């Protein structure tokens, strides 16, 4: 089958699709109305591939589809029971490694981690809870950095910068002590729109805009009625 000009042909879950050269597998799938789950990836930024949710199988090897560019004739497996169970176990590990108390969370209903758990029908994590002790940094007048819920996806580090390009957030420590922290000097004078954007870009409830929360009734929030990814699957 000949495809459109400037597009290359790949096979995703046995279905032949076409996408522009240079796109990643996630982008190619999205363009064709197929959802591959992502979590740490934020559209418009360079993918980091740290959460591994987007893992697919190419030639029997596991690869992250947010970083892998498509190639002519590539055969990709994504929506299989095996891969979805692997993805589910990543979500479960994230749930037990932090303190994710959904009933008290301002982001509940709009949280991407929770939405992925709903999508993969997680009823209980298969791993023991670790209940780590974490601190809450409420020093900034505009936002709260809730470390209990942080999944260290780096989305805030990549997207929240001032006009000079300085980062508001940064990694601190290493390994299991890794934390995303707010720069105390820049955070003290954070503009309002940037604070709102930081909360929006955070996939979980780790960055909260101060003095406002729980303003959307249950039933009207983003993932109350429709699973995450259905906006891609339902397009045309």
């Amino acid at each position, binding site marked *: 089958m000949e495809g459109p000009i400037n597009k290359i042909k790949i096979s995703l879950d046995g279905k032949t699709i076409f996408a522009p050269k240079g796109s990643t597998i996630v982008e190619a799938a999205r363009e064709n109305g197929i959802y591959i789950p992502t979590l740490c990836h934020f559209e418009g930024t360079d993918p980091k591939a740290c959460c591994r949710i987007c893992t697919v199988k190419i030639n029997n090897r596991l690869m992250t589809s947010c970083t892998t560019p498509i190639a002519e004739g590539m055969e990709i497996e994504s929506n299989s029971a095996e891969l979805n169970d692997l993805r589910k176990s990543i979500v479960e590990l994230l749930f037990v490694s932090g303190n994710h*108390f*959904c009933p008290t969370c301002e982001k509940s*209903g709009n949280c991407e981690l929770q939405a992925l758990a709903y999508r993969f029908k997680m*009823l*209980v994590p298969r791993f023991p*809870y670790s*209940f*780590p002790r974490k601190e809450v940094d409420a020093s900034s007048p505009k936002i709260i950095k809730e470390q209990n819920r942080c999944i260290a996806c780096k989305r805030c580090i990549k997207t929240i910068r001032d006009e000079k390009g300085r980062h508001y957030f940064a990694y601190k420590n290493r390994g299991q002590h890794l934390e995303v922290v707010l720069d105390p000097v820049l955070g003290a004078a954070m503009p309002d729109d940037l604070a709102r954007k930081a909360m929006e870009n955070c996939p979980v409830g780790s960055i909260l805009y101060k003095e406002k929360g729980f303003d959307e009734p249950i039933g009207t929030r983003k993932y*109350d009625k429709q699973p995450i990814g259905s906006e891609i699957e339902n397009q045309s």
Partner: protein
Amino acid sequence: MNKKIIATTSLAGCFGCHMSILDIDERILDLIELVEFDKSPIDDIKKFTQPVDIGIIEGGCCNSENTQILKYFRENCKILVSLGECAIMGGLPAMRNGIPIQECLNEAYLDGPTVQENHEHIIPNDEELPLLLDKVYPCHEVVKIDYFLPGCPPRADLIWNALYALITENPMEMPYEVVKFD
């Protein structure tokens, strides 16, 4: 068909999950045709009077009494169901997990901003009181749990679907809207 025997309890919970059981509305009339309640706060039966088919657990384990009751349920129930976030992951009481127990007690009885008139600096420690555990445990980390129904509280439709499936031994319907963590 013989009626299935059901037992329920609330451990470290707020009874919200029990309220959600009542929230099945008029279907409670259908339920009572299908089941008989044994030990439960709903009928105030304190001890098991017969082997139970389905035991429903609300709340996690925060003290010695909770674990005793949970083990008592496991011994007497064929199927145990964790109902709600507290039974599944400890819930709000588990927010103390990660903080040393002495620190929690000091905050509650000695140093907290709302502590008044505890001039003798007493931390309750009577032998009649259940012993606090080092942290709040999810039920499945104490005994084997067969099924999990998340939610805070779990939606009434989820409870009804699960109970109906267990009673009639059919697969359970789980529409997207009814499985929620809040």
